[in-house]
């Protein structure tokens, strides 16, 4: 499966994400600079990586969301291409409007960088098909602005429609309803604060993130 990783000035998880994609899709992803206006042909998955795009100026993800390539990403998402946004990538996807809500400064004001326990919210998405609903997994977080916020109606809708992909098993950053990751209405866009690409092999201290990519490959290929 062909994939692409978007690279912004200040991205710092783009190479990790590329390695995870190479390992699980069997193909080296195209690295696409933010100034590009078109994505490579025939890609099944777009990765929007973590980092501090544009130095988090204005709001985390705000500038990246308005960069030229994101117009192509939004358009591809509309055609059903899978989009995975991790950490800063999640912030960027909310800023583009592909996902509802916003990610605010962590409630404790601290940068949180550690392994966290997550609960899988649903196995009914392409991203979570290799997990069991309710399963406990461990994936690291590393963020300052991961405090998910949306109005009550939106939160009710996300829960009611089975769109909460991952929840924190304990307090991490003040996120509403412990939300760690959500999918869009059609289920082809996932944003999550934890880093599955940092848990894909034993040397990472676990491989709980690997199944996310494997499930995607199986669903898309």
């Amino acid at each position: 499966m062909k994939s692409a990783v978007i690279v912004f000035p200040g991205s710092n998880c783009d190479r990790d994400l590329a390695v995870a994609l190479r390992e699980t899709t069997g193909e080296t992803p195209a690295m696409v600079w933010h100034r590009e206006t078109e994505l490579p042909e025939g890609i099944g998955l777009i990765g929007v990586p973590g980092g501090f795009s544009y130095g988090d100026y204005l709001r985390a993800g705000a500038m990246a969301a308005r960069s030229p390539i994101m117009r192509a990403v939004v358009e591809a998402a509309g055609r059903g291409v899978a989009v995975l946004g991790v950490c800063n990538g999640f912030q960027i996807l909310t800023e583009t409007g592909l996902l509802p809500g916003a990610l605010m400064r962590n409630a404790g004001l601290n940068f949180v960088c550690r392994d966290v326990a997550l609960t899988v919210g649903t196995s009914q998405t392409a991203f979570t098909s290799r997990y069991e609903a309710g399963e406990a997994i461990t994936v690291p977080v590393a963020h300052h602005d991961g405090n998910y916020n949306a109005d009550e109606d939106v939160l009710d809708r996300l829960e009611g429609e089975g769109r909460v992909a991952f929840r924190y098993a304990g307090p991490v950053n003040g996120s509403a309803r412990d939300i760690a990751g959500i999918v869009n209405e059609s289920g082809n866009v996932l944003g999550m604060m934890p880093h599955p690409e940092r848990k894909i092999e034993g040397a990472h201290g676990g491989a709980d993130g690997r199944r996310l990519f494997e499930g995607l490959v199986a669903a898309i290929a």
Partner: protein
Amino acid sequence: MKARVYVTLKNGVLDPQGKAIHHALEGLGFSGVEDVRAGKLIELELADTIADAEIEAMCRKLLANTVIENFRVERVAA
């Protein structure tokens, strides 16, 4: 012409920065501070021809995230 755009968190949205500032003020011995909310001030230097509606569009499209923030525009004579 200049416009000042004030971006503030919506009521009810938790403001951890404001809370920390509040706490620090109390730590400095200032009593009687009941609440603190932190926001942003963005100053725009604008051509005189720019209409209010256009400034509002700038706020909605970029300067504020209306999911969590309110904005207020103040035009200032140069």
